[in-house]
Each structure stands twice: as C-alpha cells, then as structure tokens.
C-alpha cells in the first residue's frame, strides 16, 4: 500500500510538470497583455512598453519559463503583476472561503443525497423515489445562479434569515462563517445532491440484485442492517468516486456561486486573474488545482481499500 502511494506521488511529478509547461505556453498564446492593463486606458504605447520591460515581459518565452520554473522549484510562486502581493499570500487569502464552502456543500449533498438514493433504490416505485428522480432532473437542469437568486429572494431579502452576500472569515467565529455560507452551499449542493442521489440509487439497485443480499434476506436479517452493512458498503465505490471528483471540482472554485454571493474564493481569483492576464497567479492556481485533483484521486483510491477489502494495490 505504501509503495503504491509513493508510486502515485512520484507519478504526479511528470503530470504536474506537463501541466505547468502547458499552462505557461497557453497563457503566452492568449491575446492580451498585463502591461497594457496595468498602464490603463490613457497610457501611450511607450509607457506600456516601459512597464513591460520592468516586469520582464519583454524577455523571450523560454527565458521566462526557465526563470519561472526555477522560482517554482524553490517554492516561490512570484508576485501578482498588479497588486505586488505574493501569489502564495493571495491564494491563502482565498483558500479558506473555497474550502469551507466545498466542505459544507459536500456535507449537505451527502447527507441529503445518500439516504435519498438508498431509499429510492430500495423502494424504486415509491413516492420518495419518484420525487428524488424528479428532483434530480431539476437539480441537473436548473442553473446555479437561478437557484442562488431564488434562495436570496426568499431567505435573504424576504425572510431576512441570511445575508445576501459576503463571507465571514473563521477568525470571526464559526457560527458567522456557517451563517454566511448557508445559501451558497445550498445553491451549489442542488447539483451535487442530484448527482450523488442518482449514482447512489444506481449502485444500490445493482447490489440489491446480488445473491448475498438475497441470502441475507433469507437469513431473516433486518432490512436496515442489510442496507447499511451489506448493500451500502458494496455500493460505496462509485459513490465515493463521485463525491471525490465533486469535492475536487468544488475546490477548483465555483465562479458563478462565488460571484452571485460575492465570496472571495479561488474561483473568482482565477476568473479575475485570467481577465486581467495576471500570469503568475493563473499559473500558480492551475498548478494548485491540478495538485488537488491528483491528491483527491489518490485519496479516493485509498478510500476504496477501506470500504472494499477485496481491492488491493
């Protein structure tokens, strides 16, 4: 197992290196120029060129790549071309809202979706199953901003239970943080509830047809025990996979939700940095997201072993 984990970690190095090179090249091909954005609307071409020189953007691509890679290897992500703030500091500023939102969303989604999927599979023609499947279609179909604005109108502007926007940092109290993120987390979780409920239902339906489940019933085991001990555990692999991928996607930032609720998370930082061509920030963020995907995939693979002893690496 340890050898497997080490192997996977080593395999991540060429993956991340390739991502780094690809992102660097991609950004160099995108039209736009940070020097022009920095200089503003009234700058003359000479002034823009002077800023480009001061930021070393006039250097050849290969030279810039080698310099950047050298800094990266020493853990230096550089500074934002605009604010001058260290990229690592910018990411630290933004990672907390994204992480808390992702965790909250996954907790809500799993708490709601897994039981719904389970019940829907166990009573496939029952009212819960029908409502769950209809809800899942709705969850897939409704754009997140529609759900978000709907929630804002009812629970923020109407009832006044939650704020319209903004994020309260953990340093100001967990209750405030959770309170500020209830609506965004619920809005994003719609899609994940739909996804996880459907996958859970499909996986459980498949397991319910297995011989050992029939045997358990024949032995007179209680339905609740059969579901939790035998069915759910054996159906867990696809569910864990989808939760893992969902969590990684959420960590990659939910730009629309962060925009609608004005949450200063990684999604908005990514979008803003791309729009203004803040190359060091974009490069660091994409590397971070790639690392998150690699780590989450590894965690998911390890989780398989924990829930299914038949899986061995």
């Amino acid at each position, binding site marked *: 197992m340890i050898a497997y984990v080490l192997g996977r970690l080593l395999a991540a190095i060429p993956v991340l290196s390739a991502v780094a090179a690809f992102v660097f090249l991609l950004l160099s091909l995108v039209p736009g120029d940070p020097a022009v954005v920095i200089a503003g609307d009234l700058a003359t071409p000479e002034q823009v060129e002077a800023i480009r020189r001061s930021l070393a953007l006039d250097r050849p691509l290969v030279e810039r790549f080698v310099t950047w890679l050298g800094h990266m290897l020493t853990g230096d992500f550089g500074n934002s071309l605009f604010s001058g703030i260290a990229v690592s500091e910018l990411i630290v500023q933004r990672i907390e809202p994204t992480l808390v939102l992702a965790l909250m969303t996954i907790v809500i989604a799993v708490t709601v979706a897994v039981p719904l999927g389970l019940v829907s599979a166990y009573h496939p023609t029952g009212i819960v199953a029908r409502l769950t499947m209809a809800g899942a279609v709705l969850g897939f179909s409704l754009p997140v901003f529609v759900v978000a604005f709907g929630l804002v109108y009812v629970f923020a502007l109407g009832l006044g239970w939650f704020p319209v*926007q903004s994020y309260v940092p953990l340093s100001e109290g967990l209750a405030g943080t959770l309170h500020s993120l209830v609506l965004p987390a619920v809005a994003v979780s719609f899609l994940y509830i739909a996804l996880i409920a459907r996958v859970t239902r499909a996986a459980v339906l498949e397991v319910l047809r297995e011989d050992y489940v029939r045997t358990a019933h024949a032995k007179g085991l209680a339905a609740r025990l059969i579901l939790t001990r035998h069915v759910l555990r054996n159906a867990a692999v696809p569910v864990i996979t989808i939760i893992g991928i969902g969590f990684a996607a959420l960590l990659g930032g939910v730009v629309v939700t962060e925009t609608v609720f004005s949450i200063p998370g990684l999604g908005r930082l990514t979008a803003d940095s791309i729009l203004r061509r803040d190359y060091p920030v974009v490069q660091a963020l994409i590397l971070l997201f790639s690392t998150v995907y690699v780590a989450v995939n590894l965690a998911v693979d390890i989780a398989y072993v924990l829930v299914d002893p038949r899986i061995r690496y």
Partner: protein
Amino acid sequence: MNRLKQVIAALAAVGTIASAAPAAAESVLRVRPFGDLKQIDPVITSDYMVRNHGYMVYDTLFALDEVMQIKPQMLERWQVSPDGLVYTFVLRDKLAFHNGTPVTAADVVASLERWGKRDGLGQQLMALTKSLTANDDRTVTLALTQPWGLVLEALGKPSSNVPFIMPAGIAKTPADTAITDATGSGPFIMKREEWVPGSKVVYVRNPNYVPRGEPPSGLAGGKTAKVDRVEWRYIPDAQTALNALQAGEIDIFEEVPPDFLPMLKGNAKIRTAPQDTMGMQMVFRMNTLVPPFNNPKVRQAIRYMIDQEMFAQAYVMDPTLYKNCPSFYMCSSPYFTDAGWVKPDLAKAKKLIVESGYDGTPVVVLHATESGPTNTFSLVAEQLMRDIGLKVEPQAMDWGTLVGRRASKATVDKGGWSLFMSGPTGADMMDPAGHLGLRSNCDKAWFGWPCDEEIEKLRAEFSLATDLQKKKELAKAIQLRAVEVGPYWPAAQLYLVRAMRSNVEGAPKAAVPVYWNISLK
C-alpha cells in the same frame, strides 16, 4: 419547525454579531465601488479605481472645486512672478504623512518629478521646467523656461494621472515600477493588511489629518473623514450589489446600471444621485492608420452617421442621465463650443461612403461585451455602419483582450482593428491640452494614432496661452480642425449614478467619487 426557526434565528444572530465584530464601536461606510482595486500606484496607471484610491490616501497641491475652479489644497499660499516664469508654493503647516513624518517640500518635488514622467500634462510641464526645487521644508519653487498657461490646471487636474503627493522615499521609485506602499497624507489610511484584491479594501480615518478651514467644495476645501472606516466591498455582480443595498449590507452602490434605477424608485430607504459632476464621454475611436478609417472621407461618413440621442437611448432612456453634446469638449467645460458640428444625416453618410471609394475592407470592431455602455454603444455602432454600407466584423471579447488587441497597428487581415468604443471620464475630455481623443501627435497619440500637424500646433498654442478668451478661441479652432480630420467622434455624454441608503449624508458633488465628509446618521 419551531425548533428550526429557533436554530436559524440563533445562527443569524451570532452571524450578524460576528460579521459586525470589527465595526462594533466604529462608524463604517460600506461602499460597492464600480470596479476592483487591482493595484495602488496612481502614477503608473490611469485606472480610475486607482485614481479614486489615490483621493482616499493622498492629498494634492491644488484641487478642482464644485464650480470647476482650481483652488489651493495642501498650500497655505502660492504666487507667480509677474513674468509668469517662477511659481512659489508654500505648504500648509502641520501636514503629515500617515506614518507621522511631516510633509516637506522635498516630498513635493519628488512626487511631481515622478508624476511628470507619466502624465501627459505633467510631461508638458516638465518639458518647460527649468528647475523644481525645495527651498526649505515648506517652500517649493518652480521655474519655467517660458510662461505656460496650464500650471495650475496640471497641478490641480482632477483625473488620471493626478499629481498626488507621496513621501519622497516612495516617490523615488522609477515611474515604470509600481509602488506597493500606500502611505500618503490624505484623510484616510489604507489598511494594507486587510486588502483582499478582488474583494475588499479598507481605509480608516487619518486622525492626524488637518482639513482646510474652507467648507468642502468638489475636490477642494475641507476634507473631513466623518466615518471611522470606509470599506470598499467589490461585488462583481450588479444584481447582487442591488440586493445588498436593499438589505442594508452596503451603504453606497456606485455605477448603478440604468435598467436597475426604476427598481429603486419609490424605495424610501434608498436614494440616487449623480456619481460625479462631469459624467463621461462615449468615444467612437477609429484606427486612422489602416483601411477603411485611414480614408478621411470614411471618417466623415461616420461623423454624419452618429446620432448621439440614438446611441444614448439604447443605453438609458432617462433624459437626465445623458446629454446630446455637440462638441469634442464636455458640455460643462469652459471650452465647450458647437462650432462646425453637423446634424446626423444617414443619407449623407451613405453618400460619403460611396464617394470615398470604399472597397469593402471589413470594419473590425473590438467589442468588449462585459462593460455596460461600451457593449451597448458597440452594438448600435455596428448596426449603423452596416446601414450606411460598411462591411462590419464585430469581434466579441473581454476588456483585457481589447486593450491588448488595440495596441496592434497591423491591418485588419493581420490581426489589426478598425474601431473600439470607450468611455473616458469627463475630466479627461475638458480641454485641448489634456484631451484624450484630440491628441493627434501620430505615434504618441492614443490608440488609433491620429496624425495632424495643425491640431498639434493649435494645442501647443493653447498650452502656452494664459488668457482665457484666447484659450477659448484656440479651443474653437481646434474643434473646427478636428471636425475636418476626425481623430474620433463623441457618441454621447452619459451621467453615472450612485445609489445610497437614506442614512448616508454629505456625499460631495465632485468630479470623481470621493468619500470624505460623508456621515451616517
């Protein structure tokens, strides 16, 4: 259900307390600015958000008041020699930077020198400067090689780049390298450790700021920070910002989109007011280097095509929020003239296109889709150009791409461009000297690079003139020449609106949005 309500109520109460924690004993003005503060150097960039940040933390030697008069701001007194060659400026007593060090004449010299390397008017001033010296701690002498009529206009210019005064140690930074220290001597202090680019900027009252004795007027007079803390909370989505204003989560919402204004009417808790006194001019900027706009006759056709009323009403119907201003200068400018202006005439425009020998070269429009007025004005321009017989190729993009693309001088078949719409603030379109669109010094002109010796000669004369009447005559002559050659065309004058909660009092009527003298009742 009751239990659920109790839990939510408790959570809401704790959340409210938590979110208000830093401000419990302070008065906090929460503003949704029109844009994000991406950087903090008001000299390296002309970005209006950075300019507005500059007004929070810095002070200026002179400032523009409510009736467009230049008034001393950091100065106790100033004088000019009878021959107009030597200016002496004496700083007010007890001026201090945020770190407690006194503002000295050496700081002024260093700040003006740095500004003079970047700003258009500053460059003109420095070109005519024989010496700029600090005589003692409070006295600065500016000696010119010849009289120049725009010294006060330059030192008191309200918009980018504003000659803000910063500590000499910071002002010594090369003009092409951004400063990262926001220490100034203005009425507010930036809390840099609380700055989250893309989200929040925090300013606190400068307890040591000594306002002038005169009442506040525009950007001049006594600047008093009447709230302990100003928070700029950048909310990118306008609908969210509106919701936040209605819910009382913010106090001021800058640049309210016009289609939101009817929703605010009748809301007793919210009122609207002009965001600034000058407004903005929408600019139809043509690339004069490449076909088809390198042909003066095609540019003339555009002149007859532009119906300012039509452009403006596509964006906003409320007639108090736009103006049909038949001039290159803002209607509020002392140099306003409608000399040489023609009425829109599509038939004439079509005829001119035929006469121009237009060969079907596509008009490549750099169309920024995310900016309200720019997007709308681009759409109208594209349709009108089709109507008069031009082949139009709109290219939708974000503003970041547009500003990169417009630097290209290539022909349209090689990635070049023909047209973009922009909306500079009125302060940049007031007079021929600082005018963004009229500059016609070829490669050194704004993107589009119009080239006309006559305009440049007249602009130089305007800069040297000291008599207002003479200046007005020159401004008129420049306009008459500009309507002939068409460096660009104004497409309407718009007024931006900011909405505020009814408990916000004292918002200054100034050329740019500023936040001193505002209190919360």
